[in-house]
Every structure is written in C-alpha cells, then in structure tokens.
C-alpha cells in the first residue's frame, strides 16, 4: 500500500512536471529523469519484431523503463497516428517513419521537435538523413536509425552475367521476357527506385530536379519517354504487389531478377523465405537509397521516454546489434562493418539520392495513369 502511494505520488509529480519542463531546452539529464518518472514508452513499428522486442528488453534492463513495441501494418500505423492527431494526449510515443509517409506526416505536422539538438549523439548519425528523407526536408524532426539501399537482387543459378549499365539491363530484359520483376511503385519503395532510375535514364538525368519543392511542368514534359519504355515492354516485365512479393516470387522461381531493399532481403533470407544463394549489387546505372527514421509524436504521452528510446536505438551498441540480428545497415557513420549484402564500394560509387518528394509523388501517380491503365 505504501509503495503504491509512493509510486502514485511520483507519477503525479512527474505528470505535473511534464507540463513544466520544456524538453527541448531542459538538458539531457532532465530528460532521462523525466523519462524514468514516465516509466514507459509506446513504440510503433512495422518490421523487425525480433530486433525491437530484444531492444525493448535491453532498454528496460538499462533504464528501468518499460518499452511496449507494437508491430502493426505500415499504413495502419500512420492512419492511427493521424486519427489521433487532434487528441490532447495520444497513445503513440514514438514511431518509425518511412516511404511516402514522410511527406504526409511532415505536411500534417505530426511530430515533436526539432529533436536533432536534443539527442546527445545526433551528430554521429548520417547527416544527410537528418536533413532529407525520401526527398522531403525533415528539418531535424525525424531521427535516423538505419540506412537502406535498393539494389538488384538475382538468382546466380539463372543469371550468369548480371547487367551493370542501363543498356545491358534493357538488353537482358528484352532477351529474358518476364524474368525481371519490380513492384508497383504505389506499393513499395523498390518499385519507386526502379521507376526513378528508368526516368533518369530515359529522360536525361536527375540533376535538373535538384532543390525544387514543387513540380516544374517543363521539367517533366518528356516523362512520356519513360512511360513508353514501360508500355513497350508490357509483356516482358513482371509487376509485383510489394517489396516482399518480389522477393517471394524470386524464391518461387517465377522471376530471376528483381529490385530489393538490402535490409529487407537479408531479413527474408534469415527467415527461410529466400534461398541463401541470392546475390545483390548496385548497378553502375545507379539505384536510390535512403533510410528510415523515428519521430516523437506531438501529443505523445511519454515524450521524454520516447526521446530516451530513440537515443538508445541510436547508440553504438544497439546499431551494431540491429545489424547483426536483422542485417539493417546502421545510421551511424562511425561504425565500420563487414559482411554486408552490398559492398561498400557499390554504396560509395553507385548509390544515388531520390529526386524531391513532389516529383516522386507525381511519378507514382503518372505511372498508374500512363503504364498500369494502358
């Protein structure tokens, strides 16, 4: 009874102090103590249940704060966050942010921040990802926690000389009808990455889009060339339903080459959903990469704990653990790694950045109109 009283008292105090403390200026020590008083953090993700579950246990051991990890569907997670947007106090503390949701959620002003100046190890994380994610300016609101990269994934038993340049790829696709698959860009980032590269190669590069925050119509006037490339090869390309569907079809022998996310591929491989012989590389023609981030919700019930949780996931130890467990490439820039699916050389030479988000959205919509609807 006495303990209950004390706990209630402390919690009440913490709740009261929560309104008093401005976490953005209070300093890290205050955040840690506030987090401990809050006692728990609720975190929404849509992948790596195994890693996050163990991280939650480690977190609890280290700080005595309970971490509740909810693995939901990607779309459902964001819908929930948006549905709760106008509540004074929501039910989500922190969540993974990625894909087309970066733009949606930033536009809706869903997150607390900027948190870049709050997290003590922020400067150790990939600086580019602090600024720009999926072509959207994130202004230090979204904290990087891993980087990922798209590459060509293939079955070495069936593909002897994987194509490097654009011309080689086109030739390969024409010679091996239906053997190359990519996912519908409205359903997954790997498809977006492939269409992105096709646009770059058929309409004259990506340079001219740099820095635009809105679509400049004259710059996309010749995108019909890209759409023509697709419609000409309607019977030679296989369009899949999701990033994972591409991998599953490769495993099932329907296709022998596709585009995949590096972390996703190694995760599926480790779970027995893809044969171990599969190989992956970034071709010379270039494929896009990026990373996922975590955000703290504006109406999070446990903001300090959420910040501490993100700090914990960004720590050297956890970044390494995540890589070992699920093959996700760390967001930290001070961690040299071995045993990655993609070579460092490929990453340095052939990884490219997305064009701005406005173009990416247009690309997804136009693909539906000009390729799928035809």
């Amino acid at each position, binding site marked *: 009874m006495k303990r209950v009283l004390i706990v209630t008292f402390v919690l009440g105090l913490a709740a009261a102090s929560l309104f008093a403390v401005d976490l953005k200026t209070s300093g890290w020590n205050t955040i840690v103590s506030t987090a401990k008083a809050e006692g728990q953090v609720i975190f929404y993700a849509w992948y790596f249940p195994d890693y996050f579950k163990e991280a939650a246990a480690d977190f609890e051991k280290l700080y005595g704060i309970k971490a509740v990890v909810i693995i939901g569907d990607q*779309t*459902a997670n*964001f*819908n929930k966050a*948006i549905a709760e947007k*106008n509540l004074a106090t929501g039910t989500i503390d922190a969540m993974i942010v990625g894909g*087309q949701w970066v733009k*949606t959620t930033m536009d*809706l002003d869903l997150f607390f921040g900027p948190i870049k100046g709050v997290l003590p190890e922020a400067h150790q994380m990939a600086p580019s990802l602090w600024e720009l994610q999926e072509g959207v300016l994130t202004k230090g609101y979204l904290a990087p926690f891993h980087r990922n990269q798209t590459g060509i994934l293939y079955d070495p038993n069936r593909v002897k000389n994987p194509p490097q340049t654009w011309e080689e790829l086109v030739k390969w696709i024409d010679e091996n009808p*239906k053997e190359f698959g990519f996912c*519908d860009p*409205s359903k997954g980032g790997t498809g977006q990455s492939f269409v992105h590269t096709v646009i770059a190669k058929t309409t004259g590069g990506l340079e001219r889009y740099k820095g635009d925050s809105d679509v400049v119509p004259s710059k996309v006037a010749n995108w019909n060339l890209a759409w023509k490339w697709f419609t000409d090869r309607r019977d030679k390309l*296989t*369009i*899949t*339903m999701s990033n994972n569907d591409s991998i599953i*079809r490769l495993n*099932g*022998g*329907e296709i022998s080459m596709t585009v995949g996310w590096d972390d996703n591929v190694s995760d599926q491989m480790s779970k027995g959903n893809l044969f171990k012989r599969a190989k992956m590389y970034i071709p010379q023609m270039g494929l896009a990469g990026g990373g996922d981030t975590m955000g703290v919700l504006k109406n999070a019930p446990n903001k300090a704990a959420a910040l501490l949780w993100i700090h914990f996931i960004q720590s050297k130890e956890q970044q390494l653990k995540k890589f070992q467990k699920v093959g996700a490439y760390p967001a930290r820039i001070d961690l040299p790694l071995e045993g990655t699916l993609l070579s460092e050389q490929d990453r340095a030479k052939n990884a490219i950045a997305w064009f701005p988000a406005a173009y990416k959205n247009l690309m997804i919509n136009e693909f*539906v*109109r000009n390729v*799928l*609807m035809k």
Partner: protein
Amino acid sequence: MERQRVGFSTYLFLIPGVGFIVLFIGSSIFITITQSFGLFSVTGTSQFTIDHWVALLGDRESLDSVLFSLKMGFLSSAGTILFAFPLALFLRKGGTGKRFLASLVKIPLFIPALVSAFLIINLISYHGIVNEVLVALNLINRPLRMLNDRFGWGVVGIQVWKNVPFVLLILASSLASIRDDTIDAARNLGAGAIQILAKIFIPLAMPGILVSAILMFIKAFGDFAITSVAGPVYPPSIALRMRNTASLFQEWDKAAVLGVIIILTTLVVTWLYAKLAEFVTGGEG
C-alpha cells in the same frame, strides 16, 4: 404472426438491436456523406462543396474501379452459386458420409477472407502445386501466371473458395422446404432428371438463390482484403481505392465520395434483386 394492436411498445423492443446499430453505423454514414460534400472534414475545415464529386465522377480511374468491382461482384456471386448448388442438391438428404462432408464443406466459412486469399495464392503461384501438377500431367508446357492476373480470375476463385459454404447454407435451407412427394409425383409422371431440376428444384430454390446472389454481390463488391492480395495490379477494387485514397493519400473527402458510391451501388443492386425476387416468386418473396 400474433395479431394484436401494434403499440408503441413494439418499437421499444427494437431499440437495443436496431438502435445500437443505427447509432454507430448511422453516425459514421452521416459523417461519410457530409464529408463527401466537404463538411466536418478530418482536416478540420467545413465548407460545402461538390468539387470532390465532380472530380471523382469525371475520373477514369475511379470508373475503372467501379467497373472492376461490379464485375467481381457479379462473377463471384454467379460462380459461387454454380459451385454450391450441386453440392446443396446432393446434401439435401442424409446418407453415408454426408454429415462429415457437410462439416468439411463448411471449413472455409470459418477462415477469414484475408487468410483465404493467402492460402490460395500459395497454391496458384508460378511454381505452386497447381501449376506443378498441370505441368506434370502434360496439360501445359510452361507454368501459368495466375497471380494477380489482369482480369481478376484469382479474386473470383478465392471468393468462390471462401464463400461456397456460406451460399450452400442458404441454398440448403430453401431446398429443404421442397417435399419429397412433389419429386416422386413428378417422377411418376415420367419427368427426367433434367426436367425435375429445371421445373422443380431451381424454381423452388429461387428465393434462396436470389438471396445468396445479393449477399455474395455485396461481399465481393465491397471487398478489399482479397483484392489487395490477389487482385490485378490495376485497377484496385473500389473499396481498396477508397482505403488508399483515405489512408495512403489522406484525401478523406474523396474517399468519402467513394464510400457513398459503394453504399449507393449496393442499395441499387439489392433493390433490383428484390424486384426480381418479387417477379420470380409472384410477389411473395
């Protein structure tokens, strides 16, 4: 029916059930309709407009989705009845093994639509067991690409798989009301099997067939789970498009328009079937 004066009390009886449903569903329909005109929007604004309607009604993508869903609705209800009717005829009377068969048949009824779709795509994948058997039997040279086919046969197949038991139950009850002496009499008068089927079973089972058709149509027309797993890359079903419009693109007002279109289509088709039922059964259905 108890013949008594209908008092206010009868309506009181309806409150727990109908009231509960109307309170919750009614309010969400109300929000859907008002929002399709831009009122009480999720984004906080509230301004009457028909822009969303104009935009969507002139949009070929939405039209494609409506047509696709209509196609799925009609084919699924026809396909399901076609499969369920012979089974219902066979199960009409008891016999060796039929109880077991009846239970076996019902299993898919208890498997959620999403799981059903998942179960079936495992089978019809490129090197799935169906293709492998067909190749082994030399019926085809190369495996067929049945996943996410452009027409939507995969969706129809899964709807049939999942819903045969549902329709079977409805048909079974209308067939159960057919008396054996009617059939015996027909037989004694020299009617063949085909005649018995055409003149007795089908007409007498017609109300059941129509009810199954309505319910199956509603299910298949409003489906998004099965289409999202096994449907074509394009177009998405109308429900799937609505979900994407709302949740992926955050265009709630437009999604609300699609929602209203689904509800209206469902009502119109139900009404048409009801008229048809009256016509077929001579106004008693």
